[in-house]
């Protein structure tokens, strides 16, 4: 193999000292994403304090987050069902970093919560009212909802999931 790979590596200080010429650019990138038929209804459900799922016409699988099609059967999922707001922890992490990669003072506990009465269907959320060392795989949890007047039709209308005995 070639023993002399090419490339000129730089250090961060090289940029600070303007050793090389650069151009900076901040794109004006703003978006207005369509939530879609399924998620807009899911968000309405959250505002009303309910977790909604959809049922595939063909295989009967309940999907949450809901979708208007079952991607396994490639058929429509037209039936909406109200789901319990309890579930089990499929996996979790103890995160010390925020979205912008800065360090958090108190760790946050993201988890995939499998919602009861589905076949392992779930979504991402946060575990609250629990110390990191108390959280276990398979732990039973229940949604803690924001007060009705504070709900906005957002995933954060569920504040977090807390352990239940």
């Amino acid at each position, binding site marked *: *193999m*070639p*023993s*002399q*790979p*090419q*490339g*000129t*590596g*730089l*250090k*961060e200080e*090289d*940029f600070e000292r303007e050793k*090389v010429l650069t151009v900076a*650019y901040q*794109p004006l990138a703003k*978006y207005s*994403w369509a*939530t879609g038929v399924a*998620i807009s209804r*899911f*968000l309405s459900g959250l505002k009303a304090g309910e977790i909604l799922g959809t049922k595939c016409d063909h295989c009967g699988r309940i*999907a949450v*987050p809901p*979708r208007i099609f079952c*991607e*396994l059967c490639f058929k429509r999922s037209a039936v909406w069902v109200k789901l319990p707001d309890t579930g089990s922890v*499929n*996996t*979790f*992490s*103890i*995160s*010390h*970093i*925020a*979205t*912008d*990669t800065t360090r958090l003072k108190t*760790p*946050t506990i*993201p*988890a*995939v919560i499998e919602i009861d009465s589905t076949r*392992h*269907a*779930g*979504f*991402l*959320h*946060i575990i609250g009212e629990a110390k*990191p060392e108390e959280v276990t*795989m398979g732990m039973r949890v229940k949604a803690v909802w924001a007060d009705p007047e504070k709900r906005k039709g*957002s*995933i*954060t209308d569920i504040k977090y999931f807390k352990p239940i005995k």
Partner: protein
Amino acid sequence: MQVKKRVAVVGAGMTKFMRRAQETGKELAFEAAKQALDSAEMRMQDVDSVALGSAPDAFDGVHMKGEYLLDGAGGWQKPYSRNFVGGGTGVFSVIHGWWHVASGLFDTCLVVAEEKMSTCLPHPQTAFLTIFDNMIERPLGPNLIWIFALEMHRYMQKHKIPKEQIAQVAVKNKRNALDHPSAQIAKAVTLRDIMNSEVMAWPVQRLDISPVSDGACAVLLASEDVARKITDSPVWIDGVGWNLDTTYWTNRDLYFPRYVANAARMAYGMAGITNPRKQIDFAEPYDPFDYKELHHMEGLLLCRKGEAPKLTKEGVTERDGNLPICPSGGLLGVGNPIAAAGLMKVCELFWQLRGEAGKRQVAGDPRTAVAQAWGDLMQIGTVVVMRS
């Protein structure tokens, strides 16, 4: 499955992998492409087509990155196309190039993969935030590391794997990379260094993660008759496979990458491999995190589910072991310029199978090897099987 022409790799080249390159993306692509051409003593006019792979435009910060890179990648006035499947791109680029030649449409194809992540600030990871669902995941304030942490934790819990056994992979690969001329952060780290490194999102610690990098790689593909004229030792691409799973990652059990297994079965089927553990001499699975090497060894059906840590512990996956894994040093040791990283693994297969890997050479005259990449939202497995 009907394949018109057998395809060989006849040349390879790559740049250094660096945290911040001075070179533009075009210049990186050129240096790699040029080395691949020179290594096969071919000229640009002998190249019939060009296949380029590069991950999100948002890393290099240029719109239509494929077209931007074209002239450095040798695409001028050629049939040129770009592919992008996240981290799977590097190995997928070879498959994309393979289509050109196996179909009989072209005799030669230059495959190039490039990434310049250092352009993206404050951190390339921020370009990734929209990988989370904008409606129901981003409002929770996620960090990209969460995805890996959640997958890693599920894998560890399912098979009761202690963290030390996973960290051992990082020790091995960073050490292997000391013998790779392009390596960015090759180092003799100890298990204790890994276990003491900063916890990002448990169980992920800082030294479990491969670095952000800039770099490019290239390989030259040729059909059988043309390959035999170019070189005495073509390396054959005998199997290709690719497979994706649903984006709804929270509806899948993350402990096993079934889409990697699907891709592997496709590639093994083509290559006539019925017993991967016995018939594959060494492998380069995708290792952006240490646990991923283990996860992917199992996905590549090189061992039973949950068995990969045991093989690592027993030294089977060391360069002098019975099944060397990532003899190159992998992404953990050489670096991770997303698309170029996967192609680096294919370059490694090429050099190893020709006995040209120098200090990294796996002993015992290896004949058959597999390279694999992975990406998107833990969705794609891309696999190639190569033979000398």
